[in-house]
């Protein structure tokens, strides 16, 4: 076993750290909130340039065929620098689903790699809560020479800047589960968009006989690939969370050495030292949990799900501890939009809620335990 970064990973991480840190300054990120769709087009072009949008795409589709560990390494840098752009949807989730499609679409891969296309996953329906195996109300219907899709999706992460949506649906007639590709810019697709607390974006989307340009997968294979994609997505966000926590540690350590109260740096107070120690333990354990999940990503479904859920629990708990205590260490400044720590808290809170919160994963483990 080897937990050290490969040379390739070191390079990837160095490049990412360098670019992201200099580009995504606090001020820049605060300004980005006002952009209409949350996309930083210049940065996105750089992502393409640096090959990051190709990392998860198979070689035969022009991609770099990176492993999930490589993706995770890159994601830690995104988390550390609180990048709000729609990287996970387009560079992690979509490539997995698209490359496992019955008929992979080379043009779309090319457009993703070049930075022209962005793809979001539309799954949740109103009234649902992390219902990844519940039947869909959204309907995929065969028409004369193609397919249309009708229904409502809620909280479609990264939708506002997406050019395409991968939509989960049931097939009219058979009732089979399906994944369909739907171009986002057609009048039959209408979106109600909003900001998220971490400055990312999402939409509620209505499909009114919208054209589906491809049916990617259907039936049991669609379900299992979809489950794999969700777990990989969770891992990518988990890696972002780990990066964010590691950043938060450094920020806090520096702050409590600097900040004076009662005539000395507050870092001299044992109570605050012990808070830092708790944060340190939680952050390290979170990275270990991430590694445990990464090790199982290609394992049989049950083992994979177990490892991902365990990691999400640990990372979720750690995220809350680290960011809340990080704010506590900052005092009032921790509550302002002008200090990084408050942004980490928001990001970490959002990630905990994406694709299954702690409660969801505790239930998933619980269900496995009782059938063990």
């Amino acid at each position, binding site marked *: 076993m080897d937990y050290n970064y490969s040379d390739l990973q070191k390079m990837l991480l160095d490049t990412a750290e360098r670019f992201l840190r200099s580009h995504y300054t606090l001020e820049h990120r605060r300004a980005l909130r006002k952009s209409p769709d949350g996309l930083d087009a210049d940065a996105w072009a750089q992502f393409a340039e640096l090959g990051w949008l190709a990392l998860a795409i198979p070689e035969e589709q022009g991609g770099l065929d990176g492993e999930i560990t490589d993706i995770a390494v890159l994601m830690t840098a995104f988390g550390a620098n609180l990048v709000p752009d729609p990287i996970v949807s387009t560079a992690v989730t979509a490539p997995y689903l698209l490359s496992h499609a019955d008929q992979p679409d080379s043009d779309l891969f090319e457009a993703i790699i070049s930075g022209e296309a962005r793809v979001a996953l539309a799954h*949740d329906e*109103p*009234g649902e*809560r*992390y*219902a990844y195996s*519940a039947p869909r109300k959204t309907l995929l219907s065969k028409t004369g020479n193609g397919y249309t899709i009708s229904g409502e999706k809620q*909280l479609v992460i990264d939708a506002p800047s997406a050019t395409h949506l991968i939509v989960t649906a049931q097939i009219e007639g058979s009732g089979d589960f399906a994944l369909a590709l739907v171009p986002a810019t057609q009048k039959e697709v209408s979106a*109600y968009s*909003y*900001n*998220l*607390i*971490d400055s990312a974006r*999402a939409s*509620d989307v209505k499909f009114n006989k919208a054209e589906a340009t491809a049916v990617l997968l259907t039936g049991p294979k669609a379900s299992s690939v979809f489950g794999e994609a969700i777990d990989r997505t969770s891992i990518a966000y988990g890696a972002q969370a780990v990066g964010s926590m590691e950043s938060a540690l450094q920020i806090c350590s520096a702050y409590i050495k600097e900040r*004076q*109260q*009662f*005539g000395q740096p507050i870092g001299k*107070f044992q*109570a*605050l030292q012990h808070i830092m120690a708790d944060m340190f333990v939680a952050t390290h354990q979170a990275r270990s949990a991430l590694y445990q999940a990464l090790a199982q990503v290609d394992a049989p479904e049950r083992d994979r799900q177990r490892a991902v859920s365990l990691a999400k629990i640990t990372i979720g708990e750690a995220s809350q501890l680290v960011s*809340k205590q990080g*704010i*506590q260490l900052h*005092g*009032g400044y*921790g*509550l*302002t*939009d*002008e200090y990084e720590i*408050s942004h980490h*808290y*928001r990001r970490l*809170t*959002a990630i905990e*809620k*994406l694709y299954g*919160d702690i*409660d969801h994963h*505790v*239930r998933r483990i619980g269900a496995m335990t009782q059938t063990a």
Partner: protein
Amino acid sequence: MDLKFDASLADFRTMIRDAIKQDLPREIQERTRLFGGANSSDPHDSLAWMKILSKRGWTVPHWPEIYGGKNWSPLQLFIFQEELYKAYAPDTCWGGTHMVGPIIYTFGSEAQKEQFLPAIRNGDYYWAQGFSEPGSGSDLASLRTAAVRKGDKYIVNGQKIWTSCAYMSEWGFFLVRTDPEVKPQRGISFLLINMKSPGITIRRIPQINEEAELCEVFLDDVEVPAEQLVGEEGQGWSYAKFLLDHERTTSSFIYFNKRELDRAKMIATEETLDGVPLILHPNFQGRIARLEAEISALEGSVMRLLANEEFKYNETAVASILKVSGSKLQQALTELHVDLIGPKAIRHYASESVDRDPYDPWPDHIPGRTSQALILRASTIYGGSLQVQKNIIAKLAFGL
């Protein structure tokens, strides 16, 4: 020992409840329900509501009768506040009614009483609190804003921070250093300052919930008439401590905590998992039950203090219990809200967006919850952080 809540108070409660129901405007109630967290009512709503309450003479019932108070018992005052909270009425302008008001009627000159008490009672304007400074958060004794006496004026220079709604306050009460030579606590005085005075600049601080009600106040050669000194020079520190003693149970946020527990149950009834309301899921039931237990205990602790129990331990240490427990509960409850709404919690709602967007398809119990949970990380920071409270307890209860 007589531990039972006096049954005759039930009538009083009904009377209060009915009056609030009759008086409280719906739109104010709605804004408070969605975005009025602990201590963060919209100041416009605060003042508007005070105008309404003042018709019944209910803005300052806790004051002595000669200044417009109601001579209610501590339990009646408790019920009054509880009902206000339950009804999602805004807070009164706390800086006026609970801070500077009592200071003025206790230590102020007759002229100050005449000028300010009626205005506070009527909610004529908002009051800013100028205590904290950038360099002195939990360490108030180290404050540096200086007031130098020149003839019949003080010239004030310095900077205050975390001043709620300073940008729309007409008056402020400030702790300033009038004597840099003596022991830090001794050189502090209590000044009333008109916020429109030349030399005052105000910057709103953007917050974690993307609101900006807290401010920085810069004072640059601000001239303050000497008659705006409250009480004696050098006594500011003891007045600030008087405030703390005066409002021992406030920091429990008991009314807020009880109300937010009810809200949690309401949300847990609305939100479902696999079609089943969350309130039927043991995990959430358990979290709710444990918080309910904590709140019930806290309410008991508040009552014990209100009823003047003779404590074996130092009373300031006992009061710190309320702050420790109350502040953690504020966080735990609002985090529970966030967890109850689950994925929907990640949407950002600005407080003004509620009025603006009638097309928002999301249910009514979502807006404001995450915003409130985010900003309430402050509850263990301001007014003496959790760590400071524990220091106090260790020192005063155990002599450590």
